[in-house]
């Protein structure tokens, strides 16, 4: 029993359906993660005392436990709280919250990289707390960390097959179903792998374009040295924990 192109042709339409689900899930959960991550980062920065410990503790807990178990937790437990979400929405919430805790770290590293001067200057200009964040801190803090966020986007794509474990028919789900029906796993799963490679390449390309756009519009060379560090040797960036 070796490679059989017949099965490749048979499974292809199913995989394309799954591909759509995978892409949609990635985009939605990343959008959720970007928004929620910013909220968590700001909360961790502005709160003090018990609320601070609660927020950081929760973020650590979510970061330190497997996404699969969190998905199971949401999927099987929410109905008991009278919240019945479709599996797809459930998956997006799970992914979004999990990646928000990663991204909050990225945002925080951007905020920490700003010199104290910026805070002092906005204070002496009599900016309110909101104005300081909105006009001084966030525009400067987010721009240099966008490439790092792109890496998380790529990592997120590669985690989406977990959705198939809560019965969402993404690429992996379709491949498994096809395998169960025809008892051929080699072709479907190999094709899923190849499709993920392609998706990864496309995502990496688009992240590269975003990086270039940012560099062109805002002059990478004009960054103060503390921000330039993010552009060099991303693998060693300690803020970029856990992934590529």
């Amino acid at each position, binding site marked *: 029993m070796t490679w059989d192109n017949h099965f490749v042709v048979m499974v292809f339409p199913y995989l394309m359906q799954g591909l759509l689900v995978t892409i949609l899930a990635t985009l939605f959960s990343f959008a959720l993660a970007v928004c929620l991550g910013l909220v968590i980062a700001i909360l961790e920065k502005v709160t003090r005392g018990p609320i601070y410990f609660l927020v950081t503790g929760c973020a650590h807990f979510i970061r330190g436990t497997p996404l699969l178990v969190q998905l199971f937790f949401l999927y099987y*437990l929410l109905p008991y709280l009278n919240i019945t979400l479709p599996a797809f929405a459930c998956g997006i919430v799970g992914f979004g919250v999990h990646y928000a805790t990663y991204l909050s770290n990225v945002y925080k590293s951007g905020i920490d990289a700003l010199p104290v001067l910026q805070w002092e200057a906005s204070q002496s200009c009599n900016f309110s707390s909101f104005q300081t964040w909105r006009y001084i801190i966030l525009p400067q803090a987010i721009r240099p960390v966008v490439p790092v966020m792109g890496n998380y986007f790529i990592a997120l794509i590669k985690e989406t097959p977990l959705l198939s474990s809560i019965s969402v028919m993404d690429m992996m789900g379709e491949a498994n179903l096809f395998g169960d029906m025809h008892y051929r796993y080699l072709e479907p799963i190999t094709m899923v792998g190849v499709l993920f490679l392609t998706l990864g390449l496309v995502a990496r390309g688009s992240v590269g374009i975003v990086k270039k756009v940012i560099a062109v519009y805002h002059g990478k060379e004009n960054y103060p040295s503390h921000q330039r560090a993010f552009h060099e040797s991303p693998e060693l960036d300690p803020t970029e924990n856990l992934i590529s």
Partner: protein
Amino acid sequence: MTENIVLDLFCSVLHGLEITVALTVLGSVLAFICAFVFGLGRIARWRLIRIISVFYIEVFRGTSVFVQVFWLYYALPAFGILLSPFLSGILGLGLNVGAYGAEVVRSAIQATGKDQYESCCALNFTRYQTFRYIVLPQAFPRMLPVFGNNMVELMKATSIVSLISLSDITFQAQQFRIRTGQTFLPFAVTLLVYFLLYLGILFFVQSVTRLTKPKSVKV
């Protein structure tokens, strides 16, 4: 009755913990070896070795760990290679995280300054001596924090093996849920156990970092 359930859960989790810890430790060892072999292979002098390493790194970083574990378990039998779930788990996790580690090794070594190599050249060190006594001691502490993150990532990824019928903590929690109809208890306990493992790994990495910290030299 409730006591029985708690006892039952405790035993299940303990059984699962054994598998999870074994997978994490063995997977990390494999990942560590792969990281060094292919990380150094990527900057080797021979072109063939470089090509092989790049191929390995791109394939395993490009596809998801989920797909890799499933491929090893479901697709390899088509070539007549039957792996046990445990072995496919170790191989899948180790090779995947090893590919990420290889990039870390490469960038940590390439981050060593050019002046270091020039000084070695001036001191007439061989290539091996340069690497062993100058480059590695400086590069290794640089890799450690990222290795720690990768190890956490591997530990979290072990939950995937529950889907290829290996009875780790997640699998035991699922079984417990099906057996007793309890939902909150097994998953909450599972999350808590994983969190404790996470803290354990953080502690381990911190101790290793402290051990390998370069000692200050009097000039």
